[in-house]
């Protein structure tokens, strides 16, 4: 099981466009990936509604967990995505 913790870089937090981009990327890995606050329950990272309902703000840390082949590489690419200010790139 691979796990990573990363601070959300998007200035608007993890909703709107950043949430859509993150969920699409999580789905594209084909792995079961979960996301949540470091000390809280995790939810399915492929669920846009679940991700938005977390209400994660700019600068807040989130934990990512994945299982299976290529889990480490998949999480590294998602961490890289979350660190960027996705909204500014719109």
């Amino acid at each position, binding site marked *: 099981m691979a796990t990573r913790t990363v601070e959300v870089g998007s200035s*608007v*937090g993890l*909703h*709107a*466009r950043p949430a*859509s981009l993150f*969920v*699409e990327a999580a789905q594209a890995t084909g792995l079961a990936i979960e996301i949540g606050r470091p000390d809280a329950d995790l*939810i*399915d990272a*492929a*669920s*846009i*509604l*679940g991700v*938005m*309902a977390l*209400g994660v*703000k*700019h600068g807040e840390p989130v934990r990512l967990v994945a299982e299976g082949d290529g889990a480490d590489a998949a999480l590294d690419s998602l961490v890289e995505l979350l660190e960027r200010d996705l909204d500014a790139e719109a």
Partner: protein
Amino acid sequence: MSGRMPTGLGVSPGAAAGPVVQVAPPVRPPADEPAPADTDAATAHVLDALASVAQELDARAAGADAHAAPILKATALIARDTGLAKAAGAQVRAGKGPANAIADAVAEYAAQFEALGGYFAERVTDLRDVGGRAVAAVLGVPAPGVPTLSVPSVLVAEDLAPAETAALDRSKVVAIVTEEGGRTSHTAILAAQMGIPAVVQLPGATAIAEGTLVAVDGDSGEVILDPDMAVIDAQRARREALSAALAAVSGPGRTKDGHPVALLANIGGVDDAVAAGAQDVEGVGLFRTEFVYLSAQTMPSVEEQAAVYREVLAPFPGRRVVVRTLDAGADKPLAFANLGEEENPALGRRGLRLCEARPELLESQLEALAIAAKDTGADVRVMAPMVATVDEAAAFAARVRAHGLQKAGVMVEVPAAALRSRHMMAEVDFASIGTNDLAQYTMAADRMEGALAHLLDPWQPAVLDLVAVSCDGAMHLGKPLGVCGESAGDPYMALVLAGLGVSSLSMAPSKVPAVRLALSVHDLDECRALADLARNARSAEGARDAVRRAAAEELSRVL
């Protein structure tokens, strides 16, 4: 068969004819839907419905422009959501039929998002849109909302949601007719902004058969079914006469004898500003700033705000732009400045009152406006919404001036402000009457309550009396007083307002030419006489009729 319908309320000027496209009403799951006999089959039915909605949204995204495509793709992502599918599956296992299972799963998420407020609450519209489409797919009925239009059409609906109106394809929608709605409903305001003729409150509108040819007159509120060629020709002739009359006058607003009445645009964002900047207007009389804040989860920084304001002000170097400071509150909650639920949001801590509780909101907004004003050279004038006392006006003006902004003003929306105009205006440089809210507070009638639209009629003599009192105070001090409600865009009302002493009129830019024409064919004394006629009437209808009958024939012939 040619048929005249009962007359509706014309809310966006112009006339057009085309085939009717009915916008399907919202779909509700049947209350008597049986519990599924086979839960696996019912779950599969739910998943198929959600998948077909996702596919349809993706297909629409592929054919949409750069503005609409990401919105449609994000909505498709919701339809494909694993959490939503699981929640609906759980409802099926709990004994719900497929339609109710989807509706209840959507309701669960909607409640969560509404509790989060701000941006999340806005996304509830998309979520419900997906839910409505999936329920329709399960039931095998047409999807709610605006269908894809293949030919220029007249859209007919019970009422249109703001998102539906905003996403309309202007090249395919020649007119809008709704059975409900009112003069200040979203449909009316957006249609006027987009220059699409619109009639609201037309009884029986949703019963008109799909494809019926109708002629719509957005000025008189008339809708004619299967008009014969004579009607269409007459409509075209009138439209041509109007265009010719409108084209004959241009430039700053003036009465026939040269009394200036500035003609200004109402705007609510960068796109509006760019469009208005290209029009023949003297500037902006109402810039609503809420869009900068409503979708933000945290307070935007001064530099972020200034960047947006620079874009809005850029088209107006040397022209005036009247900025209304943040008008948020319980009905338009901000994620980062929510003071909690209120029993009576319209009478609660909104507008300037919210900024009194959270002074940093106003301070950062004024700082950002001062920066953008300096950078663009626009003649920026700042006014506060929901001012009720002279002390509030004085305190606001002091804060505006402390930021180096030259002109401070107040909105006159609360009857108290109108009645105390003489004292209120002594503290500020200008004021602007918001007739929609002034009518709401004068007549004690909620703007959102369609059944009370007759009370909200800006021709109500009581509202005109309050406008007159405000003007007396302004003229006594020699200070400018404008009107920035929808009523400023009614050419007949514009004459009355000019006669009462109003110095500027701000409206949707599409309404400016007709108002300019109306002013140009009446001198100031005639406007004063029309104002007297309106105030001497005993009802709103009486006031409107008296003014229409007495107005110059050059105007009534073409309108």
